[in-house]
């Protein structure tokens, strides 16, 4: 296998692993917060439904965590196995957050084990809730540290290259790179948002399947409320991300927006297709790109004409941008309408088709996460470390990457199907109604 093939297959394998892992990772970051909110509301209102909600979410969460842990181990090792040259450099400069991530993960793993096996062990439920805080904090900090490494790949700093040698390394400067604030915030908030909408989809689905129990309505209302809050936050942070890109990675912004010529008062292009270098059927919002990039309608936005051809990212990332932004806006609108409608008792927000839209919102949110990560990773090409190391220079020289790709594809297939089957069985066998009456019986037994 020539090196070109090794590069190609390494990229495919990394993309596959990341795309699979990110589903479980996103849910893994977001769900602990949702469990925490539900359990807290349950304790506050002394409402058994919310407590059970937390309990059932936790059970499902364990399954997704297991897959997240093992695929996370896979991507952690694959970084060294597939991109050894990159990891030599990264190890020297950005190893600190990687190292700290394992601590955050360790912390989370220990307390998750404790939390799982101490339901009903404490007289005071608040004590049990306290055990969940390290789980949620650990999960979110794992995301923070890993995203810092990704931010570094986009905006490397904290070292100098002198004749091929790394000098003046400063791990802290490398961590607090310009890409870090917006990227970390965006990843965290969208993880919460996606988790909320995935859980909302589950609730809406149960209602559609004929369950009239208030449990599901409470679950749906709670998750849609959380979803709305975080989708609005995501939009605000998205705006900051645009400003970051304009300043530090203008080629990524320009490629995502199909902004070819440097100009003042640049319009924002949404949708459309590219035919022979011409943009067709697009929605052009005048001055919007200048506002997104610099908060001023007449500001100059750097176009792709400023970059050599071999440093321009693939232009199809525009479609990824469209998908991400459209779903984000759609989910904001959907949750807003649902909440207002429920409050005002509108007919149509209680209708079946509206619930189907909420069900669809779950997979759509996950798709938005995928599109966002593809946009991030493909939009950085041809660099693995922007401006420093090209992706093709970083890859392994091993000739067996294609075989490993097949093996891992098989693994992810098994894990994907396995986790879905297990989750469905888990909740179908043990319905909410059943469990509520079981618990009521258990309690009255204790009183007697």
């Amino acid at each position, binding site marked *: 296998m020539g090196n070109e093939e090794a590069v190609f297959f390494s990229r495919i394998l990394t993309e596959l692993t990341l795309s699979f892992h990110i589903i479980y990772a996103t849910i893994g970051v977001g769900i602990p917060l949702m469990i925490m909110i539900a359990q807290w509301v349950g304790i506050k209102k002394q409402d058994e439904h919310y407590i059970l909600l937390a309990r059932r979410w936790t059970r499902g969460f364990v399954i997704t965590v297991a897959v997240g842990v093992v695929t996370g181990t896979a991507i952690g*090792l694959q970084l060294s196995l597939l991109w050894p040259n990159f990891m030599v450099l990264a190890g020297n400069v950005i190893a600190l957050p990687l190292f700290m991530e394992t601590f955050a993960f360790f912390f989370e793993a220990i307390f998750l084990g404790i939390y799982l096996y101490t339901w009903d062990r404490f007289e005071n439920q608040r004590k049990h809730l306290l055990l969940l805080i390290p789980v949620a904090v650990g999960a979110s900090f794992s995301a923070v540290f890993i995203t810092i490494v990704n931010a570094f790949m986009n905006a490397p700093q904290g070292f100098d290259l002198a004749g091929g040698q790394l000098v003046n390394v400063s791990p802290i400067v490398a961590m607090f790179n310009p890409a870090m604030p917006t990227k970390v915030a965006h990843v965290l908030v969208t993880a919460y948002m996606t988790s909320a909408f995935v859980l909302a989809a589950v609730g809406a689905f149960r209602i559609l399947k004929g369950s009239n129990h208030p449990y599901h309505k409470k679950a749906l209302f709670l998750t849609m409320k959380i979803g709305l809050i975080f989708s609005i936050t995501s939009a605000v942070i998205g705006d900051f991300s645009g400003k970051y890109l304009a300043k530090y990675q203008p080629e990524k912004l320009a490629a995502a927006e199909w902004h070819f010529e440097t100009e003042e008062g640049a319009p924002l292009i949404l949708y459309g297709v590219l035919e022979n270098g011409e943009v067709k059927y697009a929605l052009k919002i005048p001055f919007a790109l200048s506002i997104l990039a610099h908060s001023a309608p007449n500001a100059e936005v750097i176009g792709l004409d400023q970059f050599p051809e071999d440093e321009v990212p693939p232009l199809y990332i525009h479609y990824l941008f469209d998908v991400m932004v459209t779903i984000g806006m759609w989910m904001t609108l959907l949750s807003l309408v649902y909440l207002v409608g429920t409050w005002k008792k509108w007919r149509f927000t209680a209708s079946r088709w509206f619930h189907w839209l909420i069900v669809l919102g779950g997979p759509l949110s996950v798709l938005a996460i995928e599109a966002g990560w593809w946009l991030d990773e493909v939009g950085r090409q041809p660099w693995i470390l922007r401006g420093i190391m090209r992706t093709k220079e970083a890859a392994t020289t091993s000739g067996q990457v294609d075989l*490993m790709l097949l093996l891992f594809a098989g693994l992810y297939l098994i894990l994907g199907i396995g986790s879905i089957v297990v989750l469905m069985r888990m909740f179908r066998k043990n319905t909410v109604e059943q469990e509520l009456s079981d618990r009521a019986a258990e309690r009255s037994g204790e009183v007697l």
Partner: protein
Amino acid sequence: MNLEIIGITVLGMFLFGYIIIASIDFGAGFFNAYSTVRGKQHILTKIIQRYLSPVWEVTNVFLVFFFVGMVGFFPKTAYYYGTVLLVPASIAIILLAIRGSYYAFTTYGGLKHKRYVVLYGLSGLLIPASLSIVLTISEGGFVTIEDSGPVLDYWVLFTSPLSWSIVVLSLTAVLYISAVFLTWYAHQAKDEAATNLMRKYALIWAAPAIIAAAGIIIELRIHNPEHYQRLIDLWWLFALSVAFFIGTVYFVWKRHSYWLAFWLLIGQFSLAFLAYGISHYPYLLYPYLSIYDSFTNETMAAALIIAFIAGLGLLLPSLYLLLKLFLFNKEYVQGKRNDHV
């Protein structure tokens, strides 16, 4: 003591932690599968499940710690080992992934089929075997540096008596460590049938484990005389280790102080591990890579060590809490509490 030594000591601690905890885990899975096949699962399954349930996730973290720390302290290992380990490490990841997720699927998701139990048990033997290849490779003689980069010679690796001896050691050690620990654990749970069975396994696997370990020292004499000589210079550490081994076997045999038997076993393995580590010094990959020429810059090393100390400050109390609530909690160990979500 220089930064390089501190770095490799930190990593050595994680590796040793992983070896012990993972051995208990892998061995437990195997014994569970074996007793299921023999129709004796009623004796062991409960005890093993009760131990494994709250800690399964923690095991994996030790491994992640080790390799992330390795790349952090010794970035050049990513280039050498990353390139040559693509196939063996990928296979190990896939086995670990299947094992880890199926543990959760069966324990929490109710996929309780005999087939999975058996697969789970066997994967626990294949993983140490595939991971042990890394130790074999580090002895040198299997990797050559070509123009394209380091290349692993699989033929030499798979026909070498040394690599098979290391595989045998990893398997026997896994079963031995696990059996001794579970004897103690079952005894704590006041489960006499399980204690007796595990005690029997512990005694069965004691001799093969020590013979396999001795065999490797002899293999090294031919394979890497330099390393062999350094091992022999540390004979007193090995002698002490063997004394601890005899102590473990004695107490298990006498059905006395199982806790002491287990701690003597920890002593035995940590001394042997220490002696092996010292004699391996300074090489990470003989003769291409030493801890000195692969070490990271000083700023990063200092930052990692500070992060490590701060992290331990956070982890040790948490680990203590975990052990206190489950491993050393009589009510939990004896199955009087469940409280599962």
